């Protein structure tokens, strides 16, 4: 991937992610989340992982955040005016964030820089992804499916419950 393109994309992604956290209006925050997910999927395209990129848009940008918006609109959430958390909470959260950032920087900075890696033909296609999922990662894949199934059944049970 072109380094300039990467830097521009990365800056935009971080700006979108900051919007999610900092914006007072829940709908704008949700839109920031969509932008973040969309920009991440552009990054995936830059890394030759087209299948992951498309799935990222279909599942997260196209479905999950739509449900977030749906709930925000149904509950008619207003712009947040009240500050939540006192100075102690802000201090704890701030130092935790700084510590996490330091940890990430340390673990990345220690690694030697690698040049561009040639990917084999067909890398990132549906076939390649499917083969990996159903051979090397079969157990985690099936366990994730099971988890989703449990969540679906849970949702049905909760929705059926009569008070």
């Amino acid at each position, binding site marked *: 991937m072109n380094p300039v393109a990467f830097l521009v994309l990365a800056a935009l992604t971080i700006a979108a992610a900051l919007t999610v956290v900092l914006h007072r*209006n829940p*709908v*704008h925050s949700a*839109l920031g989340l*969509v932008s973040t997910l*969309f920009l991440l999927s552009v990054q995936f395209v830059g890394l030759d992982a*087209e*299948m992951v990129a*498309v*799935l990222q*848009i*279909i599942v997260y*940008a*196209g*479905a999950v955040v*739509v*449900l977030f*918006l*749906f709930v925000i*609109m*149904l509950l008619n959430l207003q712009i947040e005016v009240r500050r939540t958390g006192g100075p102690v909470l802000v201090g704890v959260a701030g130092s935790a964030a700084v510590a996490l950032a330091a940890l990430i920087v340390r673990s990345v900075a220690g690694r030697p820089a690698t040049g561009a890696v040639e990917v084999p033909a*067909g890398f990132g*296609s*549906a076939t390649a992804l499917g083969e990996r999922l159903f051979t090397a990662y079969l157990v985690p894949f099936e366990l994730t499916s099971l988890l989703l199934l449990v969540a679906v059944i849970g949702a049905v049970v909760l929705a059926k419950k009569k008070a």
Partner: protein
Amino acid sequence: MGVDAAIIAGKALFLMLAFVLQVMALGVWFERKVSAVIQDRIGANRASIFGVAAMGIVNTLVADPIKFLLKEDVTPANVDHLLHAMAPVLSLVPALLAFAVIPFGDVLQVGDRVINLQPASLNVGLLYVLAMASLSVYGVVLAGWASNNRWSLLGGIRGSAQMISYEIAMGLALIGTVVVYNTLDLQEMARAQGHLLWGWLPAWGILYQPVAFVIFMTAGVAESKRIPFDLPESESELVAGYFTEYSGAKHLMFMMSDFVEVVLVSALVTVLFFGGWQVPWLFRDGFHLPGAAFVAVPSLLVTILQLTAFGLKLIFFTWLQIVIRWTLPRFRYDQLMRLGWQGLLPLALANVVVTALVVLLLERAA
């Protein structure tokens, strides 16, 4: 590099200008005149240029757009200005982007260069279309929310629930076609429909996946939010639903994205189930008619015939969707949800299982 980029841009422009926008415009004209025929009226015929009304074309395709563009753009007080202005764009752009992987012909030979007549050849093409379709819901949701109007909000909420529900049935219906063609690239799907069954019957997708066609067409009409699935706008209860508070050019963009989605559904139905650009019995060297008759056709003429066939199929399915719209009454909301979740979804799942079983058994037998 420069030539390749220019060719890709040229293909995208050609697809937009020669097919998408033309068929969309025809769709707008059909909408007025076909509905008039169905309801025993005359339909749009007032505006004319030098006395030529051209069967309402001047009225619908010249006068109406000018009127929309010149109208005052009213933005109500207390709306979220940024989102209110962004919503029509977010509704139109994904629908247009989805055309990037639609093949509109086989190949065009120019000298030594063989040009694949598809703007972008992605190996995840079909999923890309679904991704873009799933993004177009934001235009509806945001228009509904940003307008600061109860009717708009109700329309937006209905729209988001409806589009998410029908996307599932739509995606599952397409899995059947993917299993049959064994690819996600739309161009390869169109090419796979080029052979003949028993020497005379073109092997179009409708023969292999009739159930998927019915589900896809139904879900496609629901995705474009048109009658009988127009609950998000339903003018008799919600004024105009999510775009109640839009006027002028922004309203035009919402209308345009509706029609672009109609053309998109037509293009997908054509490519997946009706051979795409295939002309029956026409191969790259000429017509191989049943009974071993052969008529040689020059390569350029073959390409032109294919482009024409693709265009005619697009027009037919656009017309069909407009006839559906003016024939059926609107669903009630619970009927809409029941059809999507209890009708189409199990049917699509059954279609996937049966298709996969048959393909597996045939492979074992071979």
